[in-house]
C-alpha cells in the first residue's frame, strides 16, 4: 500500500485566500477565550442581541439612551460575546484512503485547509486520525502559528487498518464528550453500516458534524470490465466478480444511495455534507464547493 506524499500543500496565494474565509457554524457554542465567533454568552461583543431592563450594577455605557428618551425607562443593550470555538478534525487514516494515490493526500490537504481557516480565526483545533477507532491525536492547537504544527501532524499520518466509525465516535465522545464544537469528519465513509450511527452518536453529544466525503473518480465510475479479482485494501479475502456494465450501473446506484443517505441524515440534524471528488482541484473544492455547501463563507 503506497503512502501518498504530503509536502507543501498550499502556496502563499492560496493561503491568502483562505485567510479571507470563515468557517460557518449552524450553532452557537460557548467558548473560553475571545475570538471571532459569536458565543451564547452576552456581554461586550459587537453583535446586538437584546434589551433587558436596567439593573443596578450594569455598565452605564450599555444603556440605550434613545430608548429612554422615547419610553422614559432604562434599558440595557445586550451584545453577544465573540469567543473561540472547538474544531475537531477526524481524518480517516484507514487503508481504504490509500487505495488510490491521490485520495489520502487530498483528504489531508482538505483537512489542512479547513484547519488553517480555523486557526486563523483563533479557534481551538483538535486533529485526530481514525481507522478502527481514534488511533492518533494531537494536542489542541490554537493561533496562526500552530498551522505548521497542524501540517506536520497531518503529514505524518499513515493510512492503515480498517474503518470503524462507530468505535471512532465512541472514542471521540469519551475524549471530548464534555466539550462543544464542530466535528469535521474527513473520510470516504466506506463503513457502510457504521457511518450513520456514528454520526448520530456525535449529534447526541451536541456536536455539529460536518462530513467531507472524499471520493475518487474511479470510485464514482469504475473503468474495468470482465473477469476481475477485487481486493479490499482494508484486508479480507479477495473475491472474484464478472464486471459488466449493468453491474457497474448497480454499483453507482448503490454508491449514490450510500452518499445520499449520509447527506440526508446529516442535513436533517443540521449537519453538513460535502462530497470532495479528488479530480476537483483543491482550490476549487475550498473556494467553490465548500462555500456552495455553506460550510465556508
Amino acid at each position, binding site marked *: 500500500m503506497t503512502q501518498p506524499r504530503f509536502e507543501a500543500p498550499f502556496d502563499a496565494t492560496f493561503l491568502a485566500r483562505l485567510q479571507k474565509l470563515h468557517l460557518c457554524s449552524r450553532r452557537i457554542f460557548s467558548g473560553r477565550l475571545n475570538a471571532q465567533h459569536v458565543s451564547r454568552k452576552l456581554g461586550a461583543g459587537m453583535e446586538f442581541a437584546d434589551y433587558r431592563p436596567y439593573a443596578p450594577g450594569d455598565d452605564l455605557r450599555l444603556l440605550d439612551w434613545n430608548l429612554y428618551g422615547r419610553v422614559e425607562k432604562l434599558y440595557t443593550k445586550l451584545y453577544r460575546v465573540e469567543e473561540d470555538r472547538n474544531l475537531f478534525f477526524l481524518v480517516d487514516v484507514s487503508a481504504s484512503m490509500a487505495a488510490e494515490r491521490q485520495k489520502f493526500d487530498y483528504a489531508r490537504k482538505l483537512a489542512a485547509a479547513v484547519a488553517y481557516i480555523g486557526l486563523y480565526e483563533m479557534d481551538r483545533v483538535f486533529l485526530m486520525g481514525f481507522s478502527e477507532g481514534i488511533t492518533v491525536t494531537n494536542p489542541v492547537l490554537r493561533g496562526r502559528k500552530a498551522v505548521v504544527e497542524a501540517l506536520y501532524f497531518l503529514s505524518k499520518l499513515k493510512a492503515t487498518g480498517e474503518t470503524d466509525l462507530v468505535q471512532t465516535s465512541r472514542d471521540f465522545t469519551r475524549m471530548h464528550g464534555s466539550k462543544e464544537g464542530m466535528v469535521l469528519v474527513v473520510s470516504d465513509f*466506506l463503513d457502510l453500516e457504521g457511518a450513520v450511527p456514528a454520526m448520530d452518536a456525535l449529534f447526541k453529544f451536541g456536536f455539529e458534524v460536518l462530513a467531507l466525503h472524499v471520493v475518487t473518480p474511479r470510485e464514482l465510475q469504475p473503468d474495468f470490465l470482465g*473477469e476481475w479479482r*477485487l481486493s479490499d*485494501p*482494508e484486508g479480507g479475502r479477495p473475491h472474484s466478480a464478472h464486471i459488466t*456494465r449493468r453491474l457497474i450501473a448497480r454499483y453507482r446506484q448503490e454508491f449514490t444511495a450510500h452518499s445520499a443517505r449520509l447527506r440526508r441524515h446529516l442535513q436533517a440534524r443540521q449537519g453538513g455534507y460535502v462530497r470532495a471528488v479528488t479530480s476537483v482541484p483543491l482550490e476549487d473544492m475550498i473556494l467553490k464547493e465548500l462555500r456552495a455547501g455553506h460550510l465556508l463563507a
Partner: protein
Amino acid sequence: MRLFGLTPTEFTLLFCAAALLAVIIYLLAFRKRTVMVAADPIWRKIVGKRRTPFRKLLALLIQLLVLFLLSLALGDPRFLPAQAKPPVSMALVVDVSASMGTRDGGGTRMDRALDLSGAVADAMGPRDRMTLMAMDDSCRPLLPYTSDPQEIRDALGDLKPTTVSEEAQPAVDFAASTLTGSGSSADAVGRIVLVSDRFHAIEAPEGIDLVQVTVGEGTENLAVTAFDIRPRGGAARGNEVFLEVANYGRRSSKVRLSIHTATALLGEEILEVSAGGTTARSYFLQPLETDRVMATITAARGGGPADGFVLDDRAFALTPEQSTRHVVLVTPGNLYLEKALELNPSVSLKVVAPERYRPSVLAGAQVVFFDGICPPAPVHAVYFNPPGDAGCPFTHDREVDLPVLLPLRGDHIVTRGITLIDVQVQRACRLLPEPGDVELLSDGGGPLIIARERDAVRLLGVGFDVSKSDLPLRVAFPILLHNVLDWFLGEVAIGGFNEYGVGDLLELPVWINPEEGVVNPAGGRVAPRQVSNKLLLRPRMPGYYTARRGERRWVAPVNFHLKDESIPVGDRRETADRLRWDGEEPPARVVAGFDKAEYPEPPLQWPVILMAIAWLLLFDWIFYVFRILF
C-alpha cells in the same frame, strides 16, 4: 458417416490438439487480474456470492464445438450407405522402359498400356482412389491419389517410353509405401497394378494386392550386340571393324547390315541370323575423314526397320586414334619377346644387342625391355632374368629349380586377365623386394616377379629367363606384355563399343565446363553431376555425347546394350495374378471392387458444417457482447 480427408487417428489427434490449445487459452484467460477497490464493501454488497458464471464455461463449450466441427470439416465427412463395399486404393504403375516403345501391329506397347490404364481409370467408382506412376530405372508418381478419371487420363497423355530398362521391385515397394499413406479409409483395399510388356519376378508387399498385366504381342527382334573398331596391325592403314548381330526372336530372319558414317555408306551386307543365334562379321575400313562410324540393321527388303524395336538396331563407335609406343628391346636374341612385341600394332620396336647397348640408344624410347642384362634405365623398363650385378635395380636372393608358382595378384594391371599358376620354369631366381614393391608372382619362398615405382619410373623385374620356360608358348604371354605397356604408358583406347552403355555412369574429363554441360545425341545439353573432383554423367539415349572447350574435344559413343529390353517376349506365363491383356475391357481381376453404380456421389457435408460453424461463431460473438454489456 466416414471421413475421407483424414484417418480416424489423424482426426482424433487434430481435434485433441486443438481442444488442448483452446483449454489452455481458456485457463489463461480464466486467470483473473486483480484490482484494488476502496469501495469493496459496496462491491461485495452487489456482487454477493456470485461466482464465475456458467456463461463463460458455455463459451468454452462453444469453442470446443467449433473446433470439433472444423476438424470434422477437414476430415471430409460423408454419409455412406450402410452396406457399401470397401473402396479400392490403387497404384497403377506403368512400365515406360525402352521395350515399351516396341511396335506391335498398329501401335506400340506403350499405346496398349495407356489404353488399358485409361480403361481402368474409367472403371473407378466414386469412392475409389488411384494414383499413376511411371516406372523405368526409377519410379515417379505422376499425380496424387484421386477419384477423378479425367485427371488420370490427362496424366497418361504425358507418358512416353524412355531409353532405359525398368526395375520393378523398387517401383512396387515405392507404390506400396504410397498406398499406406494415401489417406484412404481404413477398410480400403490396397492394390498395385503393374502394366508392363513382361512379367517380373517380384514379391507382393504384405497386405497389398499385386496384379501384373502384360501388353504386347510381338516376338521378333534383332539387335546389333557388338560393334568394335581397331586399327589394322603392321603397316596397313585403316581400321578393322568387328560386329555381331543377335536374333532374339523365334524364327530365322534376314536383315540388311550397313556400316556407315553420318554422310556416307561404307558397305552393307544381307545377313541371315538364326532364331536365338548370333552372326559375327569383321570388315576392313579404309581411312576415313570422320571418326564416327555406325552399324545399322534394317529390313532385308524395302529398307524399313528390321523389327518393331529400333533402339538396338544401331550401334555407334569411334575410330581409334593412332598412337605409337616406342619400345627398345635389348636382347642377345629372343625371338619370343621380339615377335610378341611386334604383334602389338601400337608398338614401334627397336632391337639392340647387349654389347651395343648405350644409354643413348634409349633416346626417344618410352619403354625398354632388358633380357639377361641389368643396366640402370631412365625410362620404364622390364628386366627379364636380371643377373643381379652391381648397378642392377633388382637384387638376387636365391635360385630355385622348377618352382611351384602361387596364384598371381589379380588387382594389378600387369596381371590383369592372365594366370601363370601352371607355367613351367626350368630355373628361377627369387628377387629381394624393397619397401613399396608389389609382389606379383611368387613360389612361396620369395617373389619371382616384382613391380616397382620410383620417381615416376616404373620397373618390372622377372626372375626367370622366359626362353627357359613355357610362358612364350601361352596366350598369356602377349597379354602380359600388353598389360606391362598399359601399366607403363597408360591404356590405349582401341574401340568404343561397350565402353559406355545407356544407363552407365561415365566419368568425364575434368576440363569440361559443368555449366555448359554435354551435348546429347538429340542435340540437347545435359548437365553432368559434380562429385568431389569428378564429373559424372549417366547417358539415357544411344548415340554420340560430345563436349568441346577451346581446342579440346570429347566424344563418347553410347550404345543400347540392355539385353533385357531387347528380348521381345520375356516372361509371359500367366497365373492368377499375372494376366495378359489384349482385349478392350480391363481384366476383371484388375478392376475388382470398382463399381461406378454402387451409389451416387454423396453430397459433401462439410459446407453444412462450415455454415454451422459460422452460426456458432456469430452466436459466440453476440454472447460475448452480451456478457460485456450486461
